[in-house]
């Protein structure tokens, strides 16, 4: 589904990603872990198409399309979803209207009629249960005055509404208390299916107590320095990142 080959990327002239390779197949859950500043969020931004990030080498194919050729909105319409680490506030735009615009843009792209209000509300009601989100939150301006937990839940709710092929969760666990973490993780698990893939980006292992990854990769200094199964995450938790990073030659 997603094939990343030797991606190099700069931010403000500084090379952050120094050759990333990664294969994700439908139905798989991958976790990318790594210390602060290793390039985790940069990878998420590059995949989503944020313009400040300049890809200098490498290629990415997504569902057999050249991902890097697509605009950010077309990537989204093709089924790539990014749950933001810091969801953005848009005053005066209700969450409901925002999601409706997003859903219908995607439908239009795929040659479908826009959803009418009745069918939209019906789907919304179903998905609300998944992430235990309150109706009142959805009529408020998107993310404005939301608590940290509400913002993250809203991200997962949008993911549920948009039904992406590939969901990238950028530090979705950061700033969540244990209850919110459980709700968010449950939401992700319920959406997981053999057709969909999930890429979880996280600093800590604790989200992986709730979401079972098939593969765990350690990102360090712009490269994936180690890949393994869930056990790798547990090892990291126990020993810290040092046990991996000590042996890595920074200049290689």
């Amino acid at each position: 589904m997603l094939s990343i080959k030797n991606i190099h990327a700069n931010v403000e002239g500084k090379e952050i990603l120094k050759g990333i390779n990664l294969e994700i197949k439908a139905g798989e859950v991958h976790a990318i872990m790594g210390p602060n500043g290793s390039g985790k969020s940069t990878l998420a931004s590059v995949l989503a198409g944020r313009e400040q990030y300049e890809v200098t080498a490498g290629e990415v194919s997504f569902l057999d399309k050249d991902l890097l050729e697509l605009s950010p909105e077309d990537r989204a319409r093709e089924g790539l979803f990014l749950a933001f680490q810091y969801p953005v506030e848009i005053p005066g735009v209700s969450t409901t209207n925002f999601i409706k615009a997003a859903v219908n843009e995607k439908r239009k792209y795929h040659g479908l009629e826009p959803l009418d209000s009745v069918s939209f509300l019906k789907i919304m009601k179903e998905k609300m249960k998944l992430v235990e989100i309150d109706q009142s939150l959805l009529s408020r301006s998107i993310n404005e005055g939301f608590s940290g937990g509400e913002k993250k839940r809203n991200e997962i709710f949008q993911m549920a509404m948009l039904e992406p092929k590939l969901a990238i969760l950028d530090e979705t666990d950061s700033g969540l208390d244990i209850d919110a973490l459980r709700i968010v993780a449950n939401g992700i698990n319920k959406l997981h299916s053999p057709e969909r893939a999930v890429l979880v980006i996280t600093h800590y292992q604790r989200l992986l107590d709730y979401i079972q990854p098939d593969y765990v990769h350690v990102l360090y200094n712009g490269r994936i320095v180690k890949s393994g199964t869930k056990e790798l995450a547990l090892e990291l938790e126990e020993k810290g990142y040092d046990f991996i990073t000590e042996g890595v030659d920074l200049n290689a």
Partner: protein
Amino acid sequence: MKEKQGPLEQAVSNDYKYGFVTDIDTDTIAKGLNEDVIRLISHKKNEPEWMLEWRLKAYAYWLKMVEPDWANVKYPIIDYQDIIYYAAPKPKKQLNSLDEVDPELLSTFEKLGISLSEQKRLTGVAVDVVMDSVSIATSFKEQLAEIGVIFCSISEAIQLHPELVRKHLGSVVPMTDNYFAALNSAVFTDGSFCYIPKGVRCPMELSTYFRINTENAGQFERTLIVAEDESYVSYLEGCTAPMRDENQLHAAVVELIAMEKAEIKYSTVQNWYPGDKEGKGGIYNFVTKRGICKGDHSKISWTQVETGSAITWKYPSVILKGDYSIGEFYSVAFTNNHQQADTGTKMMHLGKNTRSRIVAKGISAGHSQNSYRGLVRASKQAINARNYSQCDSLLLGDKCGAHTFPYIEVKNKTAIVEHEATTSKIGEDQLFYCRQRGIDPEAAVALIVNGFAKEVMNQLPMEFAIEAQKLLTISMEGSVG
């Protein structure tokens, strides 16, 4: 030098879709202004002697006045002798019904989305249409007359209701008020007149549509609305003009009078030609709008959505004379390319327990400059006067400017005046967030801007809120779909 356009710049580069010219015979007089021109205008309109004298008096004042230069706008010196002061579509015969209107004119207004014939049948909106210097048609006149509401062109009102016009004209905006008001008083050609008798709640929206068509012509419209005790009226004006390289002058005066317990709601959707992307051409929109809450418990509410004009200079104001009277001002001013807007309001609290509320939203894009200028004054007698002002600016890009000039004069210890102001930028973050959800940059900017302007848009009459929202969106779109 060609600048690289980011998604934001592309999203706000617009095309003006009302810029066509109607090819129609026009009765125009020679350029220039002097007493004879004023006599000619008055003669062409078959006016009574008192009206001509009033005009000449205003002209004499105007000659002694100087053009104001305090607004935060820049433009070359206007040559007042290079303007045509009267232009009227021909043939101008007396029309008995809308069916007799020149088809070319009807199709002009069809193109503008103002279907006179359809309006007549389908919607509950009465329309007066003014092209250049004259009113072409007014719909629903008879139906309104049955309940005593007078809705006609000001020219017609001078003929048919001279006592009402004479009593109120210039009573809110005196001819000596300012440079442009004096000029308007001397040369005004047409506009609308509305009179709502005591106790009548006007059952439909009244609306005037202004169109400048003739090259080099100025439009000097005059609107007068009188709401007697316990009456209510909602009035809306819209305006467009062809695209021309020369700047054209539009200097209007609007006066509102609300008697005891009367309410006037006045909405404007201003879409004069704004000039091209380099700032060439466009309308100079120098307008004096003022209402007086004359009676106790009366209310005047101004709502404006300003997207057009090269330069906007207007401050719809309310004189709160009656006790417990209420003044409101809701404004969205959108400027793009090289447009300049200096707009705001004046709330003059004279009566006891008067209240006013100001919500001004400025949106600037391109190289435009957008200023809010507002005065809140509470006089000695204005016991317990209250004002709340909120001014928010939204910047699209980094080459535009937003400015706020609030003036507060309080001469009464019991008065409470509150002012809040914010400035924000459409961030790349907001834009990217929308795009990541599949919303393209144009739609994203429209979504963000409409969200920002929502509080004001909600004040518009239902029929026009959607139109205004579309207009705001179109003004920003890179391509009009």
